[in-house]
């Protein structure tokens, strides 16, 4: 009974919106664009955050990665004479980490070296990753053809390798690659698996020191260590440079997520003691993630704040038009008052109108925002995610904008003296 009357009041109140469609649409536009941009900004923000999560999450937030870093070379000749530069994490470090730091599930050693791969007369510069079998699983490096490296390969020092399909193309291998021999540094390795075509994104690539341009070849850690040692010689235009790095990387997996930061601190102090020359870097994905998320959130807030300004302008637009409408409809207000409308009824009528305008505008804005996001992601390749919460948020904000922008005009209308209003126009 009561709701029907409210419905009827709303229906008749909204009649004026239908009677002047152009004005209604123009009034709505501000909110449409405001909500549209808020939706788009939130979506881009959420997309960036999701990308961040994918990128860094791929490293495993329970992991800590230690990389060997070539220290700044003092630029004088006497140091240069020693042509083998030796730096980075040592086997001793690895042993100490495993022995002394609690809560570590795995500490996987990785040795990285640049090698020249031959197939007949074709040569390709590749990066040889000497890894333990767990390494490939940890970073979801799955083979699309063949098999992964196994513990047996490691124990038997097998000369087997897992490669990227890009390398096969470069070497011109188009037939079944399984069992194909590759000559790497005077040794012959046989391909046992080809990795899925999927590489690490931005930050993850940097953190794992995976070079996007060169081809990766994964070989069993022990095989590589036994056959190639830890020295690696890079030749470039006449001069050659030799490095001796025992471990290029150690990937540490912490048992308990809560202990990651603590473990990182312990690792930090252990390495600091062993390496005063700072020839290592400690990458804590969890820490990086939370830092980047914080930055992203600040950025998101700034974006949404800017977008909200247009929403504010939209609200001012509604208030402005409604104020003009009050003057225009003074007579109608007087008539309604004479027929028994209380002040509250008049306020409700105007608030209904503004809220309807802003809510419909908000809904159109949501659609427009979604469209905008689709267009933007299509043309720029940015990542975006429209979340339900952003839609709900924008709709509630636009509703609130309607109410707030309606309050002043509505009170003005209700405050009119019915006698004066009746005599108006």
């Amino acid at each position, binding site marked *: 009974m009561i709701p029907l009357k409210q419905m009827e009041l709303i229906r*008749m109140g909204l009649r004026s919106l239908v009677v002047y469609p152009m004005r209604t649409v123009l009034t709505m536009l501000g909110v449409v664009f405001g909500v549209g941009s808020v939706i788009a900004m939130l979506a881009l923000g959420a997309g960036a955050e999701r990308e961040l999560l994918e990128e860094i999450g791929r490293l495993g937030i329970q992991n800590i990665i230690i990389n060997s870093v070539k220290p700044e070379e003092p630029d004088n000749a006497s140091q240069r004479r020693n042509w083998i530069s030796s730096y980075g994490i040592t086997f001793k470090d690895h042993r100490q980490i495993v022995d002394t730091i609690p809560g570590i599930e795995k500490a996987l050693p990785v040795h990285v070296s640049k090698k020249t791969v031959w197939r007949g007369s074709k040569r390709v510069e590749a990066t040889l990753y000497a890894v333990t079998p767990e390494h490939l699983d940890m970073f979801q490096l799955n083979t699309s053809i063949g098999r992964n490296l196994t513990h047996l390969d490691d124990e038997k020092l097998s000369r087997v390798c897992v490669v990227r399909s890009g390398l096969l193309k470069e070497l011109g291998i188009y037939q079944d690659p399984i069992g194909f021999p590759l000559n790497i540094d005077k040794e012959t390795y046989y391909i046992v698996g080809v990795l899925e075509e999927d590489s690490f994104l931005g930050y993850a690539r940097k953190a794992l020191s995976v070079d996007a341009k060169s081809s990766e070849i994964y070989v069993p850690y022990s095989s590589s260590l036994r056959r190639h040692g830890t020295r690696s010689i890079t030749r470039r235009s006449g001069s050659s440079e030799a490095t001796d790095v025992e471990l290029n990387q150690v990937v540490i997996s912490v048992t308990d997520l809560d202990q990651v930061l603590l473990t990182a601190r312990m690792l930090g102090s252990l390495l600091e003691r062993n390496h005063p020359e700072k020839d290592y870097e400690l990458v804590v994905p969890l820490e990086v993630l939370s830092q980047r998320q914080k930055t992203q959130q600040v950025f998101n807030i700034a974006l949404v704040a800017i977008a909200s300004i247009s929403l504010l302008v939209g609200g001012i637009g509604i208030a402005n038009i409604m104020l003009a409408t009050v003057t225009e409809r003074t007579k109608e207000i007087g008539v309604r008052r004479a027929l028994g409308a209380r002040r509250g009824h008049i306020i409700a009528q105007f608030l209904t109108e503004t809220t309807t305008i802003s809510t419909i505008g908000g809904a159109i804005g949501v659609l427009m925002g979604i469209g905008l996001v689709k267009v933007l992601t299509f043309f720029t390749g940015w990542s975006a995610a429209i979340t339900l919460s952003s839609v709900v948020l924008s709709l509630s904000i636009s509703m609130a904008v309607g109410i707030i922008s309606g309050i002043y005009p509505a009170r003005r209308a209700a405050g009119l003296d019915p006698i004066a209003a009746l005599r108006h126009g």
Partner: protein
Amino acid sequence: MNAPIISLQGVHKYYGDHEPRLHVLRGIDLDVAEGEYVSITGTSGSGKSTLLNLLGCLDNTSEGAYLLAGKDVSCYSDDDLSKIRNEDIGFIFQSFNLIPQLTVFENVQVPLLYGSRSIADTTDLCYQVIEAVGLSERIEHRPTQLSGGECQRVAIARALINDPVLLLADEPTGNLDTSTGEEVLSLIENLHRQGRSVVMITHDPDVADRAQRRVDLRDGVIVEAGAS
């Protein structure tokens, strides 16, 4: 005669809080009996609009009492006056005052929206009052699609919808030509014959003389009151 439906007792109305105040009504005593048809005349500035506003509960008296159907409404609040206007008074205006964006049917419904009765229960009533003023064919029309006489009949239907104790007409024929004015007047007189109390404000002596009783207002006082 029956008990008065309207009783004004020593009513004064002035505007402004400080002297010199604009003293518009200077002591009005007026009774209108139930079922009576009274016309109020006066030149402009005589205070008849102010009297109409008081009778229509659009304004409060400055001094004196106004009893409408036995209730002293002279000290009612704004919301209470709204309720009285809604339930007890049927307004008929010179310029019809229909709401342009609503249809005939919806215009008649407007007072129901602000009252306590449910919309669903009163749909038939709307059809009845519209039929009573002879506009059944025009239910879905907008005021702009109607003639002046038709508009005024819609307004009369609207005035009747809440079955008020008093019909208050303010120059109901002022915006109409003679023949349509005649139609509207006979419609109002018909309603009077059916037992409605009617108070009509007019400046036209011919129209005023058709009432049972004529009240002349001059400079805020009643100078002549008698059966016509």
